[in-house]
């Protein structure tokens, strides 16, 4: 048994060495495939992150009745604060509102020009934890006593959600397309490898080799190809993504990026394990037809 195990491993290594060009081509293929795959996962993560950040910019503007005094307003704010689905709440007093507006108009004497009358109401700005909850929260708030009017970009909201959903779907489609292409590339390549040795497999069977003895060297080859290709592509994707992150952080700081260490390590693990699994699976598919 031990004889056979060591034989199978030696067998796989010798075959990788004797077919060195095929080995290099296979590693390059696995590499390309995994780079596409890893890259697209990062693309998906960032697309989804971007969509979330778009959504998080949706605000509900709550205008307060003029007849409410300061305590009542603060009370109102506290009331909204604890509602389900509410993330943050910010109060802009009417005094601040006019100053803000004054600055935005570039004037410094607006209140005086207006004869001391402040046309702005008190305003509470509410952010929801999820864009999909905005409409419900706004309707609830509108019912509260002392609230004059509630606004949250009706109409736009729906479109935005549709758009970000769409962005996410595109991201998933890209990952799926690349995963499919990766699998095709790797399988095809290993199939080549095995097919070119069909003759060899037949002869092994004729001299009494069991299926296991024939299969295992191919499986180990597939595993090794996936492993080596995986390591190299992790290096390339890792360096490339870090470089991109640096670039975005220094020059496009307003763009939200995914730079979570744990996430990156998971993607790299996925690439390595994915490569190895694909390598072995491809070998299984490729060898199977010769071993009925």
């Amino acid at each position: 048994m031990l004889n056979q195990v060591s034989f199978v491993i030696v067998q796989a290594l010798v075959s990788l060495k004797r077919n060195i060009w095929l080995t290099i081509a296979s590693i390059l293929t696995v590499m390309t495939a995994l780079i596409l795959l890893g890259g697209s996962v990062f693309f998906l993560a960032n697309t989804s992150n971007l969509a979330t950040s778009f959504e998080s910019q949706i605000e509900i503007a709550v205008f307060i009745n003029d007849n409410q005094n300061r305590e009542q307003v603060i009370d109102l704010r506290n009331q909204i604060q604890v509602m389900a689905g509410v993330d943050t709440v910010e109060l802009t007093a009417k005094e601040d509102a006019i100053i803000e507006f004054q600055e935005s108009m570039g004037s410094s004497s607006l209140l005086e020009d207006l004869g001391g009358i402040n046309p702005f109401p008190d305003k509470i700005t509410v952010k929801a934890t999820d864009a999909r909850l905005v409409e419900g929260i706004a309707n609830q708030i509108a019912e509260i006593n002392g609230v004059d009017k509630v606004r949250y970009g009706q109409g736009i909201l729906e479109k935005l959600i549709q758009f970000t959903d769409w962005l996410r779907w595109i991201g998933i489609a890209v990952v799926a397309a690349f995963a499919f292409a990766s699998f095709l590339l790797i399988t095809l390549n290993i199939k080549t490898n095995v097919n070119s040795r069909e003759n060899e497999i037949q002869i092994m069977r004729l001299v009494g080799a069991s299926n296991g003895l024939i299969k295992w060297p191919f499986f180990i080859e597939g595993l090794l190809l996936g492993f080596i290709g995986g390591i190299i592509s992790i290096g390339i994707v890792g360096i490339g993504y870090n470089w991109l992150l640096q670039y975005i952080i220094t020059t496009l700081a307003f763009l939200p990026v995914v730079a979570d260490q744990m996430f990156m390590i998971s993607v790299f693990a996925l690439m390595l394990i994915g490569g190895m699994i694909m390598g072995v699976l491809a070998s299984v598919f490729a060898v199977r037809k010769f071993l009925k």
Partner: protein
Amino acid sequence: MISIKNVSKIYSNGARALSNINLEISKSEFVFLVGPSGAGKSTLIKLMYREEEATRGQVFIDTINLSRLNPKQVPLLRRRTGVIFQDFKLLPTKTVFENVAFAQQVIGKSKQEIKVNTLNILELVGLSRKKDSFPSELSGGEQQRVCVARALVNKPQILLADEPTGNLDIDNAWGIMELLDKINREGTTVVMATHAMHIVEKMAKRVVKVEEGRITDHKLGEAY
């Protein structure tokens, strides 16, 4: 040992290779198969190690009915059987040494044992100097002798030799025949298809003549 009962073989393209063959070969016998090109000799041999299956009839090795054999057991059958293929069937990516070693690795022999056995048998067929060559680097006769070495190295219970001397000069051919005779005397059943009538005559063994898929003549050897 080998028992062929009412066997016919029609290949999938419709070619009729064997028609209603009956043949009994007992343990330790040496049988020549002769007959013109395309008569069905190789087909008959292929049935005996189950490279092909009989279209009709049964082939038994001992008590095993080959057409009922579980696919998982085919390798076991082949490990008891040594085959010298008419077209050699050497592994192109393995050296001469490795080709002969492979037949022993499949039955799980130890590394040390394999090495000794392989070097011995290569010496016997006169290929010690070529042990690190690949099959594509050998002459026709050298390839044939590697195939002989591989078939003999496990001292099989049955040896099937399909035209084992077709590419060999007279001296080498007799060298191989002496090996086959020796292994036969040690108990191996030998079936050999050949066109070399001078060998058949000199060996004086049982001869089965096949023509157009039928056994047309049958001579018992001197031992009978």
